[in-house]
C-alpha cells in the first residue's frame, strides 16, 4: 500500500527528560521517526520537553516545540498547528500515556487528530492488564495468575489463591516503578501498602511469581496488511525477578530449540494480531519454566522501546524508522532493507555474532539505597558489545561499562563478602541476590571451585551462561601458567586468548605484567583483530553497510574508503549520571559538521541507546568499547587524519593523553591544554598568571594536619578525595566536629591519595559559561546563571539563560575572563568554565576544555548548533568563516533537572555537591518566572497557584524565607510552618500556623500532606547531608505525592516568581523555528 495522502502534518511526541526507564533510546527512535516522516514529505511537528535531545534539533522537524509534556500544553499546540495525525509510539510510555489522555479528554476528536502506529483500542488492550489478559486467553496464551487490589483486604484474598512468592506491581507507573516481590505475608503487607500508595490510581497487581524462570523478549513489527516479522529475540541472563532493563541480556536467544522458539514466535504473532497494533513495533516478554518448559506471556509494549533500540543496534534493522513508515501506510514489502538494499524489509534478520548488553548503575550516588536488583528498574545506562561468541561479547561488554572492570575481574573490594561464615560460603550467599556486580562474583565462585550446578541452584542463571563464565575462568588458569613468561607466549596462544575476548588489561593482570607489555608482545606476534560487518542477513547477501565490530578471525569484511579525509569521533559510552545524552547530542552535531565539510566521519561508541550509534548518522560506525586497546585497533585500521575527544564527555577526554603519547593526531584543543585544565597545580599556576581568582584551597596528605589546615582556611569547606570526578564523595563541611566525623567515616589520607579542601563560597551564585575559541576569537555560547546557590552540583541546579540577577559589568567580566582562559589555553573548539560570584567577586571553580552538559541547552535556547560550529573550528575554520544563524533573543530559557529519587526510596532528596540528576527539561517564557514555572512543570511537578504552603527552613535561610513567605501570602497562599520557622515569621508580622514535625506529636506535617492539605513545600537543610527520621519522612512523602517542592531558598524564590507569573499570563507555547530573524 502506498503512503497515506490524506495526512499532511503529523505530530510526534518525544519522551521528555532522561529518567531511569526512559533514556536516549527514545531520542534515537524519535529522531528516526522524524527523519522518516520528513523523507516521505510530511510536515512534522515535534514536541519534547528535553533540550538535550538530538530530535529537538530544528533540522529534524518543521515545527519544534520544547514544551512541558502535559495535556494543556499539547492542546495549545495542537490548536495552533492543527496536525491531522499523531504518532504516539516513538516517545516511550510518556508519549503513549499523553496520547491516551488527549484521546480520553476528547481533544484528539475535537481537532480531528487521528492516532497512527497504534490506535486507542490497541493501546488500551496492551496497556490494561485486564484487557491484555483477555487477549491472552482468547488466543490461548498462558500467563501468570494474578489479581488487582485497591485495598489490603482485597490483596490478602488474592494472595491466598496465588501463594508465595508473589509480585506486587503498582498500576500505571513508569518502567515498573515500585514493583517488588514478597516471600511472606509480612513483606506482602508492607509492599502492598507501599504499592497502593505509589500507584497514581491507588491499585496494585498481585501476580504469581515467575521468579527464577528464564526470561525472553521478542521484538516484532506488524504492517497494515497483517504481515508480522520478528526482528530479534533477546534472552536475559538474569532470570525473571530482575527488570529486563537491569538484566544482562543476550541476542539472539541462546538456550531455546527451534520448537520452543517457534512456539514463542507463534504466540507473539497471535498476541500482536489480537491486540491489533496495526502498524509498528511492539515488544512482548515471555517467561519459561526452566524444568517444565511452561511458557507464559508477561507483558507487551505496543510501541518502540528500550529493547527495540537494542534490537535495532543488535541486528542492523532500524525498527523505529520502519515502524514509522508503516504508520503512514507502507507495507513491509514496499520498504527496502537499508543494509542489503537488494532485499525488502519483510524478513527476519539473521545474526552471525552474539550481542551482550550490560546495564550500568549509580547506587553509589544514592546513600542507603539498596543495591539489590528487582522488578523495578534502577540502572541509568547500558553498554552493548558484539563478538562472534558469547564469551568474546561478554568480556567486551564488561570493559565497555567503564566501571574499572576490564573483563571478569577479581574484585579488589572484598568487603562485600561477609567472611564470618568463610570466604566461599560468603560468596555463595552473595550471589543469591541479584546485584550490579553479581556476574563477577559468579566468576569468582568458579575460581573457588564451586560447581555449575551449585551456582545454578543459587542464582537460577541458566547453566549455559554459567558454563561459559566457568570456561573463561578455566582459561584464566591456563593463562596464569605463563605469568612472568610473556615473551614466551606464542602467536597461537595469544590468538586463542584474544578470541575468547580477554582484554590486554585483563591479560596483563593475569600475567603479572603491564597492559603496554601485553600489547607490545601481541603486536609483535601480529595478533590483531579484524572488523566484521553487521548486515542483518548473516552474510547471505552482499552488503556494504558501514557498521562494524572487531573480532579475532582470519579475515575481515570489506571496509570501503571514500577517499575523503577521515575524522574519527569518540563517543561517551554508557549513560551515567553526569554523562549522558548531552554528549551524544554533541557527537552527532560533530558528525553533521564533518558531512558539511566533506570529511568521512567515523563514529566509535558502545551505547546502544544513542543516536550516534545509528549507522545512518556517520559514514562508518564502529560499535566498540571505548578503551585504549579497542580504539587503537580502529585507528590502525582506518588511519584517520584526526581523532576528536572533546564531544563525548569525560570518557574520551581521559584517553586523550594516552592517544597523544602514541602520536595519534587529536583535533582541536591539545592534550596538553586538557591536562593544564585537569591538573590542579598547573591550573592554579595558570590562574595566578592570568590574575584570576580561585577559592582558597589546600591539599593535605598528612592526616594529622587536616584540622589545622581546615581551621586556617575557615569553614564552611568543600572536601573531596583527590581521585574523584563529577562530585563523587564531595561534601560541604560546616565545622571541625563535622570534619572529624567525615574523616572517621570516609577514608584514609595518604601521600598517594591526599585530601583536597576548598573554601566553600556559601552564598555565591554559580555561573556556567560555554564558549568556542578558534585560537584568535572567542564566541560566547551561553552564560547560564544557576538558580540554586553554590554547593549544589551544577548538573543538578536549574539555570537560566540569559542570567537573571547578574549585573552587566559582572557579565562582561565573566566574558573577559572566559576569553582570557580560552586564548591562553589555545583552545580550539568548546570550553566550559564554572564561575562563582560572591559579593561581586568572581572565582573560577573549574575549566573543562571540551563540550559540556549545557551545550545542547544553550544551542536550543539560542537556536545555534554550537557543537557543530565547534567541530568546524576544530577542522581549521575560523569563527568568522562559519555561518552563525541570527535568532531573536527576547525569550528566557530555564533548564531544570530531573531526579530519580522515586526509584531510591531510602534516599533523601536534598541536593548537594554530588550530581544525582539523570536528565533535564527546558522551560521557555517571556519572563524568568514563566520559564521557570514551565520548567518546573515539565520536570514533573505542577506549580500550585493556590492552597497551603508549608515552610521549614534551616536557620541560615530564615531571613530569605521571610520575603518568600510574604509573597506567598500576597499570592493568596495560606502558610503553615514548623515551630522555629513559624515563630520567626509571625514575629515579623506574617500570618502563619505552626504545625508539628513528625516527631512532635500528631497530627503532624506528614499527616497534612497525606490528607492533601498541602500544595507547596519549601524545606531547606544543609546541602548534601542525608537525613533520616523526621525530615527524611517529610521529604519522601512530598516526593511520593508529587507535590511541588523546593529544597533551597533560591529555588523557592524562583518558584514564587513563577507562581506569580503563571497567575498573570496565559499559557503559551513557542516554536523554535519561529525565532529565526
Amino acid at each position, binding site marked *: 500500500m502506498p503512503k497515506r495522502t490524506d495526512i499532511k502534518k503529523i505530530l510526534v511526541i518525544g519522551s521528555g527528560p532522561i529518567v531511569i526507564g526512559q533514556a536516549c533510546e527514545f531520542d534515537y527512535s524519535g529522531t528516526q521517526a522524524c527523519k522518516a516522516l520528513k523523507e516521505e514529505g510530511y510536515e512534522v511537528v515535534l514536541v519534547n520537553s528535553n533540550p538535550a535531545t538530538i530530535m529537538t534539533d530544528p533540522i529534524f522537524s518543521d515545527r519544534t516545540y520544547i514544551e512541558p509534556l502535559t495535556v494543556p500544553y499539547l492542546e495549545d499546540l495542537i490548536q495552533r498547528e492543527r496536525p491531522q495525525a499523531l504518532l504516539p509510539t516513538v516517545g516511550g510510555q510518556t508519549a503513549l500515556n499523553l496520547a491516551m489522555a488527549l484521546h480520553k479528554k476528547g481533544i484528539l476528536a475535537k481537532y480531528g487528530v487521528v492516532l497512527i502506529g497504534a490506535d486507542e483500542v490497541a493501546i488500551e488492550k496492551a496497556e490494561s492488564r485486564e484487557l491484555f489478559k483477555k487477549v491472552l486467553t482468547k488466543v490461548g496464551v498462558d500467563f501468570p495468575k494474578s489479581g488487582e487490589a485497591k485495598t489490603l483486604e482485597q490483596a490478602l484474598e488474592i494472595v491466598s489463591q496465588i501463594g508465595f512468592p508473589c509480585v506486587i506491581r503498582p498500576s500505571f507507573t513508569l518502567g515498573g516503578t515500585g514493583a517488588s516481590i514478597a516471600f511472606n505475608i509480612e513483606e506482602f503487607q508492607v509492599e502492598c501498602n507501599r504499592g497502593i500508595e505509589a500507584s497514581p490510581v491507588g491499585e496494585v497487581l498481585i501476580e504469581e511469581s515467575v521468579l527464577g524462570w528464564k526470561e525472553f523478549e521478542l521484538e516484532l513489527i506488524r504492517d497494515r*496488511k*497483517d*504481515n508480522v*516479522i*520478528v526482528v530479534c*529475540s533477546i534472552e536475559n541472563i538474569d532470570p525473571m525477578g530482575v527488570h529486563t532493563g537491569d538484566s544482562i541480556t543476550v541476542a*539472539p*536467544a*541462546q*538456550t*531455546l*530449540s*527451534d*520448537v*520452543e*522458539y*517457534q512456539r514463542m*514466535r*507463534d504466540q507473539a504473532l497471535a498476541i500482536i494480531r489480537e491486540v491489533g497494533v496495526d502498524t509498528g513495533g511492539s515488544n512482548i516478554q515471555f517467561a519459561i519454566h*526452566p*524444568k*517444565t*518448559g511452561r511458557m507464559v506471556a508477561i507483558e507487551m509494549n505496543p510501541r518502540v522501546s528500550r529493547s527495540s533500540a537494542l534490537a535495532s543496534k543488535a541486528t542492523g534493522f532500524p525498527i523505529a524508522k520502519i515502524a514509522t513508515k508503516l504508520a503512514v501506510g507502507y*507495507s*513491509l*514489502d514496499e520498504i527496502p532493507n537499508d543494509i542489503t538494499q*537488494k*532485499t*525488502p524489509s*519483510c*524478513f*527476519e*534478520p*539473521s*545474526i*552471525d*555474532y*552474539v550481542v551482550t548488553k550490560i546495564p550500568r548503575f549509580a547506587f553509589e550516588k544514592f546513600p542507603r539505597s539498596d543495591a539489590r536488583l528487582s522488578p523495578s528498574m534502577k540502572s541509568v545506562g547500558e553498554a552493548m558489545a558484539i563478538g*562472534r*561468541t*558469547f564469551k568474546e561479547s561478554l568480556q567486551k561488554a564488561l570493559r565497555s561499562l567503564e566501571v574499572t572492570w576490564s573483563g571478569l575481574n577479581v574484585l579488589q573490594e572484598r568487603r562485600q563478602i561477609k567472611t564470618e561464615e568463610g570466604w566461599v560460603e560468603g560468596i555463595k550467599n552473595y550471589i543469591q541476590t541479584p546485584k550490579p556486580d553479581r556476574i563477577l562474583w559468579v566468576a569468582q565462585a568458579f575460581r573457588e571451585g564451586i560447581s555449575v550446578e551449585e551456582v545454578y541452584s543459587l542464582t537460577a542463571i*541458566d*547453566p*549455559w551462561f554459567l*558454563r561459559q563464565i566457568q*570456561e573463561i575462568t*578455566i582459561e584464566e588458569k591456563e593463562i596464569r601458567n605463563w605469568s612472568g613468561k610473556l615473551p614466551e607466549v606464542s602467536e597461537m596462544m595469544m590468538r586463542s586468548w584474544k578470541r575468547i575476548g580477554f582484554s590486554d588489561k585483563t591479560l596483563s593482570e593475569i600475567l603479572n605484567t603491564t597492559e603496554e607489555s601485553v600489547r607490545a608482545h601481541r603486536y609483535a606476534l601480529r595478533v590483531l583483530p579484524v572488523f*566484521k560487518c553487521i548486515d542483518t*542477513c*548473516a*552474510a*547471505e*547477501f*552482499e552488503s556494504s553497510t558501514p557498521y562494524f565490530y572487531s573480532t579475532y*578471525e*582470519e*579475515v575481515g*569484511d570489506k571496509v570501503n574508503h571514500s577517499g575523503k579525509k577521515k575524522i574519527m569521533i569518540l563517543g561517551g559510552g554508557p549513560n551515567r549520571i553526569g554523562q549522558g545524552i548531552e554528549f551524544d547530542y554533541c557527537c552527532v552535531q560533530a558528525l553533521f559538521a564533518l558531512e558539511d565539510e566533506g570529511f568521512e566521519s567515523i563514529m566509535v561508541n558502545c551505547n546502544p541507546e544513542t543516536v550516534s550509534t545509528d549507522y545512518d548518522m556517520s559514514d562508518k560506525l564502529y560499535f566498540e568499547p571505548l578503551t585504549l586497546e579497542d580504539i587503537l585497533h580502529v585507528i590502525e585500521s582506518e588511519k584517520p587524519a584526526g581523532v576528536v575527544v572533546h564531544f563525548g564527555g569525560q570518557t574520551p577526554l581521559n584517553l586523550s593523553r594516552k592517544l597523544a603519547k602514541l602520536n595519534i593526531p587529536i583535533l582541536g584543543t591539545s592534550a596538553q591544554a586538557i591536562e593544564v585544565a585537569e591538573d590542579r597545580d598547573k591550573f592554579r599556576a595558570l590562574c595566578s598568571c592570568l590574575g584570576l581568582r580561585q577559592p582558597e584551597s589546600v591539599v593535605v596528605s598528612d592526616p594529622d594536619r587536616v584540622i589545622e589546615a581546615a581551621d586556617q582556611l575557615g569553614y564552611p569547606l568543600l572536601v573531596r578525595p583527590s581521585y574523584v570526578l563529577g562530585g563523587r564523595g564531595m561534601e560541604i563541611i560546616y565545622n571541625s566536629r563535622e570534619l572529624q566525623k567525615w574523616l572517621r567515616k570516609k577514608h584514609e589520607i595518604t601521600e598517594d591519595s591526599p585530601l583536597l579542601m576548598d573554601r566553600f563560597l556559601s552564598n555565591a551564585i554559580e555561573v556556567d559559561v560555554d564558549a568556542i575559541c578558534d585560537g584568535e576569537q572567542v564566541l560566547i555560547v551561553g552564560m547560564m546563571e544557576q538558580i540554586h546557590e553554590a554547593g549544589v552540583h551544577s548538573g543538578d541546579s536549574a539555570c537560566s539563560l540569559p542570567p537573571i540577577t547578574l549585573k552587566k559589568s559582572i557579565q562582561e567580566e565573566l566574558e573577559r575572563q572566559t576569553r582570557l582562559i580560552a586564548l591562553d589555553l589555545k583552545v580550539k573548539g568548546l570550553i566550559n568554565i564554572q564561575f562563582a560570584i560572591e559579593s561581586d567577586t568572581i572565582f573560577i571553580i573549574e575549566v573543562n576544555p571540551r563540550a559540556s552538559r549545557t551545550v545542547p541547552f544553550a544551542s536550543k535556547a539560542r537556536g545555534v548548533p554550537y557543537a557543530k560550529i565547534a567541530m568546524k573550528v576544530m577542522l581549521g575554520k575560523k569563527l568568522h568563516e562559519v555561518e552563525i544563524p541570527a535568532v531573536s533573543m527576547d525569550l528566557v530559557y530555564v533548564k531544570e533537572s530531573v531526579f530519580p529519587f522515586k526509584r531510591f526510596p531510602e534516599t533523601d532528596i536534598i541536593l548537594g555537591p554530588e550530581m544525582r540528576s539523570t536528565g533535564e527539561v527546558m522551560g521557555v517564557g517571556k519572563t524568568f518566572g514563566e520559564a521557570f514555572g514551565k520548567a518546573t512543570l515539565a520536570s514533573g511537578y505542577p506549580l500550585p497557584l493556590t492552597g497551603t504552603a508549608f515552610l521549614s527552613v534551616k536557620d541560615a535561610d530564615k531571613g530569605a524565607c521571610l520575603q518568600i513567605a510574604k509573597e506567598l501570602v500576597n499570592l493568596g497562599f495560606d502558610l503553615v510552618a514548623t515551630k522555629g520557622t513559624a515563630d520567626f515569621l509571625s514575629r515579623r508580622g506574617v500570618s502563619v500556623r505552626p504545625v508539628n514535625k513528625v516527631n512532635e506529636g500528631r497530627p503532624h506535617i506528614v499527616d497534612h500532606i497525606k490528607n492533601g492539605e498541602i500544595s507547596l513545600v519549601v524545606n531547606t537543610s544543609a546541602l548534601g547531608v542525608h537525613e533520616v527520621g523526621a525530615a527524611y519522612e517529610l521529604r519522601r512523602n512530598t516526593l511520593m505525592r508529587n507535590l511541588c517542592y523546593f529544597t533551597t531558598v533560591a529555588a523557592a524564590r524562583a518558584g514564587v516568581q513563577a507562581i506569580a507569573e503563571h497567575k498573570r499570563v496565559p499559557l503559551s507555547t513557542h516554536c523554535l523555528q519561529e525565532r529565526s530573524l
Partner: protein
Amino acid sequence: MPSHGWNAALYLENGHLFLGKGFGARQARGGEAVFNTGMTGYQEIFSDPSYSHQVVVLTSTQVGNYGINPEDTESETLLLKGVVAREYFSEPSNWRAQQNLGDYLEKSGVPGISEVDTRRITQILRDEGAQRSIIFPIEKETRTEIQAKAQTLLGKIPAMEGLELVSQVSCKVPWEFDEKKNKSRNTLGTMVVYDYGVKWNILRSLSERGFKVRVVPYQMPHQEVLKEKPAAVCLSNGPGDPARVPSAIHEIQGILGKLPVLAICMGHQLLARALGGETYKLKFGHHGVNHPVQELETGRIMITSQNHGFAVNADSLPQKDVKISLINLNDRTVEGFVSTTLRFSSIQFHPEAKPGPSDANFLFDNFLKGFVK
C-alpha cells in the same frame, strides 16, 4: 571445557583451507558445502534427508547449546556429511535435552569442525557458489601436506549437480506413518507420500490434519498408487538434482490430473519437470528460516523455512494450466505454483517448518480446502 578437541581441517573445492577443532565423528567426510542462516533448529536441519551428501555451515555462531532431544528429529538417520560451526558446546542446557550434539553426530559417523570463521566460509559460498568440501582430522602435518591430503580426499566427492540421491534415501518398502497413534482421526482417507527423502514433519502435518499417511518408495508405479484410491498424493522433499530422477517424474506424470497432488521442495521441482518445465541450480541456494515469500493472490507475506539448491524456471512451465502462486521476495524466484484444473499445489519451501516459522502452515489447509474436502 568442551570434550571435543581433535584437530580438524575443512577444505573447499576452490582451494580454501580452514583449520579448527573437530567434534562428532573423527573421520573424513565430504559433500557439497551449503550454509544455513537459521539461528535455531540444528537438530531438524541435520536430520533432514534433503541435506544428504551435504556439509552444512551454520552461520549462527553458538552450536550445541540446547543439545538433542528425542522429539525434534526429522528422519531415522543423519544423511548429511558434515557440520561446520564457529563454536561448539558439548554440554547442552535445555529441559528436553537428552544428548549432546557431538555424540549424536558421532553415532551417525558425521564429523563436525568448529573454531573456524563461518562468516568467511559463508561469504565464499555466496560469492563463488556452493562447492564440494571435505572435513577431516589432521595431526601434525604442514599446511602444504594438509592441502595435498585434502585434494586427494576431495577427489572422491561427487558434485551435486547431476547427482542422483533420491534412490539412496527413499524408503525401500511402503510404510504407514502413525507417530501419535491417532488412527481414529483418519477421517480424510489416505495420503500417499512419495518418499524422495521425506521430513517427518510433513508426515506429521498431514497426519494431524486427518489423513492416514502412507509413505511409498519413489519408484512405486503410479498404477499401484491409483489402485489404492488415496485421497491425494504428496511429493516429498529430498536431496540432489531433480533432473536425475526420471523414474520419479514418470510416476508423477501418471498421477497428474487423476489425484490431487501436494508437492514440496524436491517434489515441487519434480512436478515442474513432470509438467515439462525446467529446473536450474541456484548459485548458493536458499537455506535458512527467514525468507520472505509472497502469496500473489492475497499479497500475504510469510516468513518461510527454506532448503533448496535448485529452482524452477517460471517461463518453462505450461501457461495453460499452471499459475505461479508464490514468489520469493528476496530474489523473485518461483516458490510455488498451482493448478485448479490439474488439482495440485506445489511449494518450493517448507510449509511444515521444523525448523523455522509456522507462517506457511496454512498452505496445508488451503490444499485440503481446495482439492480434498
